């Protein structure tokens, strides 16, 4: 294997990293808004799953991926509103509400899928028209033969679907909203010290509702990506724990957009690297069994969290419903 082969393998691994990190980035940004406002969002998984199902169903019926995505965003926002109603208006336990939504989504998608499509809870496979397809950036083929940088452009940057670009473009936007706008300042304040925000005459509940709803929108996009861009149908529990990994990335990135982005990329890279190393004989060890490969991301998470990341301090008011007067 010479240099250009190695370089290409490396680029293709990074390419898969982007594809795998996209739903994590979107979900983690959703969690970021919600948790920065003081509402724990363990229901990321459920919202994404509901969005997966909605987008796959709508895309199958209408054939339009955009319509499907908007429907998915709508359903995901309804889930977010339920979470908000339970935990903000009625001051219920945020973990319990989130877990309940996860269970609801897991069961509801299968039951509706069974009765609508009669395919064991799956939705029918989509044709190409119903999906977000990959976009070749201009000049990708032209530049492909330029050494080193050509493959970088063609393999890594070009050839993703629109939602991948959207997800990564979103991160600086989130940073800007959070740190450079009045809404962002108030949002961060309400997660640290809601009393102060309230004294200033700003509605704590209103801010938290807005944060939770933004989370709903982003989870809707994440679910659409999984079901109709990365795949071409809904299958049961197809989010496969992405929501929980996004939560871990949130802690990893210390609730800051850029840090969270790199945490998501790290998880994506570990997954794509694991797929490439699996079954390949390593000198002196032999082929690495799939069980070990599967465990590597989790082992690394524990090691990194314990030794390298340092203390991750959550927003101060997280998990506590705001009570105005006793």
């Amino acid at each position, binding site marked *: 294997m010479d240099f250009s082969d190695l370089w290409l*393998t490396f680029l*293709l691994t990074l390419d*898969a990293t982007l*594809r*795998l990190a996209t739903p994590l980035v979107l979900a983690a940004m959703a969690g970021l808004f919600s948790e920065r406002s003081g509402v724990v969002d363990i229901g990321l998984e459920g919202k994404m799953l509901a969005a997966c199902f909605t987008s796959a169903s709508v895309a199958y019926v209408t054939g339009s991926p955009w319509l499907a995505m908007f429907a998915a965003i709508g359903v995901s926002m309804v889930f977010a509103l339920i979470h908000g109603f339970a935990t903000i208006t009625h001051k219920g336990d945020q973990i319990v509400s989130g877990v309940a939504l996860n269970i609801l989504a897991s069961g509801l998608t*299968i039951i509706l899928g*069974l009765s609508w499509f*009669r*395919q*064991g*809870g*799956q939705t029918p*496979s989509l044709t190409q028209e119903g999906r977000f397809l990959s976009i070749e950036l201009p000049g990708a083929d032209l530049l492909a033969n330029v050494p080193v940088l050509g493959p970088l452009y063609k393999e890594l940057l070009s050839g993703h679907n629109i939602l991948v670009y959207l997800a990564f473009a979103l991160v600086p936007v989130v940073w800007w909203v959070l740190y450079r706008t009045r809404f962002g300042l108030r949002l961060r304040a309400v997660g640290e010290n809601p009393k102060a925000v309230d004294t200033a005459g700003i509605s704590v509940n209103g801010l938290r509702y807005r944060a939770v709803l933004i989370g709903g929108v982003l989870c809707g996009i994440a679910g659409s990506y*999984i079901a109709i861009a*990365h*795949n*071409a*149908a809904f*299958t*049961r*529990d*197809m989010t*496969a724990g992405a929501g929980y990994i996004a939560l871990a990335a949130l802690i990893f990135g210390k609730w800051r957009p850029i840090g969270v982005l790199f945490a998501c990329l790290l998880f994506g890279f570990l*997954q*794509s690297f694991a*797929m*490439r190393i*699996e*079954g390949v004989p390593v000198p002196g060890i032999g082929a690495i*069994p*799939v*069980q070990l490969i*599967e465990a590597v991301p989790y082992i690394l998470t524990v090691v990194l969290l314990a030794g390298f990341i340092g203390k991750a301090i959550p927003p101060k008011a997280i998990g506590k419903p705001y009570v105005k007067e006793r």
Partner: protein
Amino acid sequence: MKKTAINKLVKGLTVALATGAVSMSALADIKPAVVYSDAGKFDKSFSEAVWNNGVKRFMDETGIEVKEAEPTNLAQVEQYMKRLAKRGHSPIVAVGFSQANAVAAAAKEYPDAQFTLIDMVVPEPNVQNVVFKEHEGSFLVGVLAAMKSDSDVIGFVGGMDIPLISRFGCGYEQGAKYQNADIKVIHNMTGSTPAAFGNPSKGAELTRSQMESGADVIFAAAGGTGNGVYQAAADAGKYAIGVDSNQNHLHPGTMLTSMVKRVGEAAYQSYSAAKDGSWAPGVQVMGLAEGGVDWALDEHNRGLVTQQMEARVNDVKAKIIAGEIVVHDYMSDNTCNY
């Protein structure tokens, strides 16, 4: 007052049930049932084959109703199995290796009920076990894959990392090497839990990584994960091979063939035997010779398979049936040294 009303109701119900049972037995002597795998009845693969070629066929031909249970998780399987046995259903067909423990428990508790377990062996006197020689069918599709491949690299994506799935992969590799000794076969397993049979995203990513390594024909033995494999292959214009059911219709033009496992036939035969009174416990092994496994050629992949390829695969098939080629079974020694 209330109590007597309830008593009357219960009595009435009992009578109704009894007459119902009598009228049932006048129609037929057996009350067959099936417990599908927890992947769902219409999984486009394993359970669907049992429904299409077994349960539905039996109901259409005989008019006898087959009671169906569709568990959505493994914990429900044993409950369904025992409930069906308790209500006098027999034979009960259990679909998939993961139901072995449930069958063992139910068979002990209800020794009068008959169970047919597909894909696994439970040594009980009232259990009929149907296992398949997946390695023989996989050998055939391996031969075809090696002939179709231009790059001399082909891939295999398995579901859960268990010997049963390795049996597919090992047979496939032997077939490919038999056709072309220099061919490279890339093996990947999706995971080590049953969730590995339902992760199309990972299936698609594994397929892409295999294609990046040069593979141009990919065989998936991975349940629902396979849908991601076929989609990724279709997106890239490469070939994929289906499993269990005939999956050629999923992506006509890129589905090279399917390694068909006649699980429906096993269910059908169990019901028919029970109807004739010839149902017997024990282990049935269904290979190429018994028609238990095969490769699929229909209008959806006709254009992909040349006359020469078809002749070659059928020639190899005849040789396996005649015993001239012996395909090594991974599960015989848990290695793929052949």
